[in-house]
């Protein structure tokens, strides 16, 4: 019993001593000693902590790289998907702008009935300037119908099948269109060329052809309706020795960028070939 009491007393005294030292230390009475101890503590803990973090990083880093790579691949896929969406939307915007312009054009010319068609191809021969459109006889297209865009004259339907048609562009070397200069109201003939350049021929010598003049269809011959814009005069060649002046023309339509065109359905070309006199021996 006495032995048990003695041990308890020793323990209690020991706790009181240690507690007193700690209390004195917290009270700042052992500052040099506590500084040394805390510095050693912090140093040790910092060293252990840094080594732990290094080991942890070493163990977990490959997983992070794999996860990052996967995430990166996902994001790259997402970016490419968004880019393709942007391109698609830009194309839709461009198409809508063209369609809106065509609608405005058709509203401005209510007397005509139009059929919009998409350009789906070009003539395989570089000598022929034709386009292929995705509307045909099922849509009411017939041979000879004029084709326009909101910018001006494109050409005329040359061949038709059920659901497609071939359109001869006015730049084709075999194409000729009766036109007039808007300012001077002078009649002339527009001809295409193998290099897709447009030329005005048969301008009378006494006519005033000025650079920048707007050229419109004249309607003469009944092949095209009148007053459709064709282009602007780029330069005029006038030689005294020749019967007529010639001019080069800048077309209002960009034939390299044709995507959607309008076919004028209610214009029936006049066939004047029976009226052309033939030479009989």
């Amino acid at each position, binding site marked *: 019993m006495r032995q048990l009491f003695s041990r308890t007393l020793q323990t209690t005294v020991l706790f009181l001593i240690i507690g007193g030292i700690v209390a004195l230390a917290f009270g700042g009475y052992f500052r040099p000693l506590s500084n040394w101890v805390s510095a050693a503590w912090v140093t040790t803990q910092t060293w252990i902590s840094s080594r732990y973090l290094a080991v942890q990083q070493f163990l977990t880093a490959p997983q992070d790289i794999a996860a990052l790579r996967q995430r990166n691949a996902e994001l790259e896929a997402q970016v490419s998907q968004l880019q393709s969406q942007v391109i698609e939307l830009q194309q839709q915007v461009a198409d809508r702008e063209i369609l809106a312009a065509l609608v405005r054009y058709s509203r401005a010319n209510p007397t005509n009935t139009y059929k919009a068609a998409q350009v*789906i*191809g070009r*003539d*395989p021969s*570089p000598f022929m300037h*034709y386009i292929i459109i995705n509307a045909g006889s099922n849509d009411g297209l017939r041979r000879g119908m004029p084709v326009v865009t909101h910018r001006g004259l494109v050409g005329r339907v040359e061949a038709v099948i059920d659901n497609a048609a071939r359109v*001869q562009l006015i730049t084709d*070397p075999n194409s000729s269109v009766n036109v007039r200069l808007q300012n001077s109201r002078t009649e002339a003939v527009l001809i295409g060329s*193998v290099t897709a350049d447009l030329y005005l021929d048969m301008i009378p010598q006494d006519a005033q052809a000025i650079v920048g003049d707007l050229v419109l269809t004249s309607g003469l011959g009944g092949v095209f309706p009148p007053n459709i814009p064709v282009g602007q005069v780029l330069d005029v060649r006038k030689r005294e020795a020749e019967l007529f002046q010639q001019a080069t023309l800048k077309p209002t339509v960009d034939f*390299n960028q044709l995507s959607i065109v309008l076919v004028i359905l209610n214009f029936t070309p006049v066939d004047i070939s029976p009226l052309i006199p033939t030479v009989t021996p």
Partner: protein
Amino acid sequence: MRSLIAFPVLFLVAILQSALFSRLSLLSGHADLMLILLAIWSTHPRVTHAWEWALLGAMLIAFLSAFPWPLTFVLYLVPTALAQTLRAALRSHMLSTLLVLFAGSILMGILGSGYLFTLQSAFSISDIFGEIVSPSLLLNILLTLPLFILITRLANWVYPGEEE
């Protein structure tokens, strides 16, 4: 039976020619995918149905093009005949192909000029050869390099050799 692959291949080539390659122009010329195909095909040593391919190809292009159809047939059958001759005379398949393409492009210029002449259309030979024939020839040769392997493999598949 494998030679029936001509139908889908030639249809695809005609569509690609009209929808794509005719729009990719250099000056006023563009590549003639059908001519390239027929040149590589007809000069391949194992091919035995070169004329059938040429006739079908010419027919498809004649259908699409406003160029007079007899001239279109001449445009594709003459190079095929030349290819058959060169195949027997030259060992190099690539060299024969390039010679056929060269001759085909020049022939295209001659036929085109002849047609424009009959139309009484104003044109100059220098324009035709400078703006159409030369750029077309250049594009044809550039396109031949990647297509050569593809079409040669197709020919090897259609006409398997002794080692297969």
